[in-house]
């Protein structure tokens, strides 16, 4: 596929936003169970706001992908069948909850909802956080499924796609949370940092698994099934449009194999290895953590580029040669 930057930004930005939110709420949950000291509302509010900014930026990026953004509202109509439609619903819903979560914290709307047997107090913000968490996962699921449900894009058609969206978004969110904490609540940065290391490691494992899986994939569609001629040697000579077509622009990344070979270790290095190293170096220095996030995010852009580029659409069988 030809990676579209609008979609790369959409998925990486909202991933980080979702991750950041999850990180904040993870911390709050720990606090609910008194495993961590409780922070003032401002910490969550500001953090959620950052998440919201990321989500909004992602949403904005997505509009660049549309031919008719003014009709985007229509995209909510087909939630029964379309993961894209579901995402279109889940994203604003999630953003709304994150917004409420931020406001609730800001205004200290800590109305107690329930007290758990262990003495943990579930207040209104926790409830919002829990709803937000569910929605974050729903959104991850929708985003992942947009790709994973396309059964002939076999590189994507795997649970790993959804899992990796969760892990990579989570990792970037937790790194960002660590950086945020190093500035706003330094005592928490190692908590987020430790989780970030775990998620980055899991993300590396997940992404590594999908790379290995994809390398082993044998295309299900072949020249033979594409045109229905049973002969081992079929070579395309013309595709009916010498100046290219939508089919050659949308489904080919246009870069050579060498470039692809470069991107793969590049993103592994930037999104996983470098942040791990930096996190290992220090879990408290804002500079190191900021750099870790920067590396990770840039790495994820490359990862996402590669995610698209690597996906080999069966339609490409019909568009091999201009002649």
């Amino acid at each position, binding site marked *: *596929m030809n990676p579209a930057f609008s979609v790369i930004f959409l998925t990486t930005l909202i991933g980080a936003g979702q991750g950041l939110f999850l990180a904040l709420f993870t911390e709050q949950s720990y606090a609910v169970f008194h495993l961590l000291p409780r922070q003032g509302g401002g910490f969550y509010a500001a953090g959620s706001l950052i998440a919201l900014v990321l989500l909004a930026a992602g949403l904005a990026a997505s509009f660049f*992908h*549309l*031919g*008719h*953004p003014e*009709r*985007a509202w*229509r*995209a*909510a*109509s*087909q939630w029964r*069948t*379309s*993961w*894209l*439609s579901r995402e*279109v619903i889940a994203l604003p819903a999630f953003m709304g909850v994150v917004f409420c979560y931020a406001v609730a914290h800001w205004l200290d709307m800590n109305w107690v909802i329930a007290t758990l047997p262990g003495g943990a107090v579930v207040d209104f913000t926790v409830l919002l956080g829990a709803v937000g968490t569910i929605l974050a996962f729903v959104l991850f699921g929708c985003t992942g499924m*947009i790709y994973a*449900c*396309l*059964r*002939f*894009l076999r590189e994507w058609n795997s649970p790993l796609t959804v899992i990796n969206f969760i892990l990579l978004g989570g990792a970037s969110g937790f790194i960002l949370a660590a950086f945020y904490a190093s500035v706003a609540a330094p005592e928490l940065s190692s908590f987020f940092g430790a989780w970030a290391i775990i998620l980055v490691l899991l993300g590396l494992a997940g992404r590594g698994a999908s790379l290995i899986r994809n390398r082993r994939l044998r295309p*299900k*569609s072949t*020249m033979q*099934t*594409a*045109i*229905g*001629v049973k*002969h081992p*040697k*079929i*070579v*395309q*000579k*013309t*595709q*009916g*449009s*010498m*100046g*290219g*077509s*939508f*089919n050659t622009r*949308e*489904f080919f990344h246009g870069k050579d194999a060498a470039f692809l070979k470069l991107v793969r270790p590049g993103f592994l290095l930037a999104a996983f290895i470098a942040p791990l190293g930096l996190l290992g170096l220090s879990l408290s220095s804002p500079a190191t953590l900021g750099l870790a996030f920067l590396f990770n995010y840039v790495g994820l852009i490359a990862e996402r580029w590669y995610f698209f580029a690597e996906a080999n*659409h*069966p*339609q*490409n069988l*019909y*568009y091999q040669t201009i*002649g």
Partner: protein
Amino acid sequence: MTQLALVIDLNVCVGCSACVTSCKEWNTSGSAGPLVDERPYGADPTGTFFNRVQTFEVGEFPATETVHFPKSCLHCEDPPCVPVCPTGASYKRKEDGIVLVDYDKCIGCKYCSWACPYGAREIDEKQKVMKKCTLCVDRIYDKNLAEIDRKPACVKACPTSARLFGDIHDPESVVSIAIRENGGYALMPEWGTHPANHYLPRRKTNLKIHEDELERADNPLKKDGKLPKPSKNEPSLDDISSW
């Protein structure tokens, strides 16, 4: 239930592209148009077409087959492009199985094109909506047209009549008969999309020659091979020997 479709006979398709430009021509001025052309007189001209003809070479010299291969939307019976559309702009008509795009609903997200394994959808870069073969839905029911014209433009144009049109659910239709009798097949059956359009394979006619056909009693050489008798006066052994 009706499922209209094209059947394309690769046995006679000569790759002339009549179906390509007649489709463009009809649709650019019809309800599916206009179809954009970018850089029409410049470098790498490109535009929206609903149908293109490609060429493949099969085998190695001298046992080479050249296959001309027209491809448009296959109007799948289980079209993966439809359910993924977030707006409902992509739909499949109940009454005849034609898969269409409602331009006024389409947001141009291109997602449906990702969901089509065949590369049958093309975005119109000017109107920014997804386009594809409409099976000439604006011709086939148009009562203003004469009966014989109520066919897709490409079918009418095709000089080798390699393109057949009809209802593949009606076992007696020309398309069903053609599929049945000539080994019609679907593209990429592995995806379970059940394309309504089918293709007919190449068929070969050979001539077997039997030895006895080359040596027959009515061979004209038997007449013509005879040389005229030499004149009696020409020299012969009789002139010099009496044995």
